[in-house]
């Protein structure tokens, strides 16, 4: 694994915009950064592939463990939600499984990857990983390969979904309309990622779709409908479950027949409480970092993470009893977990995190986000990668 300094393509902004990537620069700082790239060996890609698949299997066992032993309180999940999760989890064996998720891994190319967290409900950077870095590779080094079969696996997943549900229309919802304090760049990211998933789904024969704002999904007294009062049969939503269940319309979820993508049991995986549960089930596993619910067990050096947190918010690094880094935010009401400090490789002050995608239950590719500190936040750069065949 190497970090190579390279020349960005001439007029790269125009090239990525032509692919529909309009949030490549945030506040004059490139979010998409092609002044560098990461090079892997095919053996290292094998390692990431195997690790992703195994972590997925372990998460399945962990979810089953939570359901079997009724450990929902460890995740801070409201009691009235647990029957919905149990029901959805029970159906997952012969009904819809899961469309996607992203494992964030610390990996240096030498030691086994370590799971930092699992973004299982509303992961983004899918479009960058699947499309933008693919087209970059065609220009940069067309003879090289890339761990990236995201598009193909998404398509296969949607074929499966449509064969299973046969909905007359599929709805795709995200924060689409401005309002409140939502930054415009946030909207662009949400819209683009949702539009990409919709685009893939639209390639399935006879699949009809409607793209709506999440605010247009409302209860009409009998069922969830869209902005034109059409029945919502299947809904892909890029909006967190923990917010949906706590909003006014959340009380109707248990009465609805909507096929939700992702399913509500993803609340088990997108919660960082999954980390100490995994450690309890698989102590000293090479892909895991020690993680605990109580601070005392973590010793004097740990990363304190809110159970529900995004983009590094409210994450604090404590080393030898002293806070060495941290991010503010508004998370933490549900409590915290304490994870051992990962060794994130330092490439001249650049700290990369591997986002490894699982699509339809299969490892599907990676995207790399890099920061100048060990905490990956919402201004981290996306760096493309390749490996030699």
């Amino acid at each position, binding site marked *: 694994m190497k970090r190579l300094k390279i020349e960005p393509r001439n007029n790269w902004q125009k090239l990525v915009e032509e692919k529909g990537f309009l949030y490549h620069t945030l506040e004059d700082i490139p979010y998409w950064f092609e002044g560098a790239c990461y090079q892997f060996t095919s053996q290292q890609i094998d390692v990431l592939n195997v690790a992703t698949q195994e972590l997925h299997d372990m998460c399945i066992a962990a979810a089953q463990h939570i359901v079997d032993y009724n450990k929902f309180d460890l995740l801070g999940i409201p009691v009235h939600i647990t029957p919905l999760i149990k029901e959805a989890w029970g159906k997952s064996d012969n009904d819809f499984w899961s469309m996607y998720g992203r494992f964030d891994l610390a990996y240096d190319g030498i030691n086994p990857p370590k799971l930092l967290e699992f973004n299982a409900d509303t992961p983004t950077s899918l479009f960058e990983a*699947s499309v933008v870095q693919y087209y970059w590779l065609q220009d940069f080094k067309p003879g090289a390969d890339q761990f990236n079969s995201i598009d193909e696996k998404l398509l296969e997943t949607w074929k499966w979904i449509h064969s299973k549900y046969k909905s007359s229309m599929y709805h795709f919802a995200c924060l689409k309309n401005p309002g409140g304090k939502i930054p*415009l760049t946030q909207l662009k990211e949400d819209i683009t990622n949702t*539009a990409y998933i919709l*685009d893939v789904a639209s390639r399935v024969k006879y699949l009809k779709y409607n*793209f709506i704002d999440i605010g247009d999904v409302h209860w009409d007294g009998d069922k*969830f409908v869209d902005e034109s009062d059409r029945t919502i049969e299947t809904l892909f939503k890029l909006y967190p479950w923990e*917010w949906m269940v706590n909003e006014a319309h959340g009380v109707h979820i248990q009465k609805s027949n909507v096929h939700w993508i992702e399913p509500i049991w993803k609340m088990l995986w997108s919660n960082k409480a999954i980390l100490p549960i995994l450690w309890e089930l698989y102590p000293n596993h090479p892909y895991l970092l020690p993680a605990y619910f109580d601070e005392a067990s973590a010793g004097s050096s740990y990363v304190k993470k809110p159970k529900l947190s*995004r983009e590094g*918010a409210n994450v604090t690094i404590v080393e030898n009893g002293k806070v060495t880094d941290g991010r503010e935010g508004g998370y933490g009401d549900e409590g915290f977990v304490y994870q051992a400090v990962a060794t994130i490789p330092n490439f001249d002050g650049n700290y990369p995190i591997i986002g490894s995608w699982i699509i339809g239950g299969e490892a599907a590719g990676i995207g790399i986000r890099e920061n100048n500190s060990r905490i990956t936040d919402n201004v981290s750069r996306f760096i493309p990668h390749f490996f030699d065949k």
Partner: protein
Amino acid sequence: MAIDLTIAFFIIYDIIFQILKTKYQKMKKKKVTLAVLMAIVFSSCNTKKSNGDWDGNDYYTGKDTVINQRTYRGSGLGYWYYMNSNNVTRYYPHTGYSETLPAEAHRQGTFLNSPAHTSNGGKPVSASTFTSSRTSGFGTTSRGGGYSPIS
């Protein structure tokens, strides 16, 4: 015998390696136009709209209609509007009434002076409390909180 086993091992290893390698084959997206994505992204995210120098902070819901030979966009607040530089013209389909107001006032949700044209029965309400005949659905956490909802 030992040599045979070694050869067999490498043959099996190579087969497994080739199978694994197929997982990483490059995408076939070069044949994919991403037409749907492009249409959505450029209509929803491109702030340089054809009707004026709009900054994106409107109430766009994705529905368009043509009224008096102009393209109007549907608002969740019960009217249609089109943008013309720094002004916005609203059209109220319930009464056929239209008004033009500064874009800034539109962005801030400034309410129509004459509530008789709206769908709320003509009751005088402020922009902050007004809702259209359609009930607002999910999304209140993000719009009230402002935290980045996605990871």
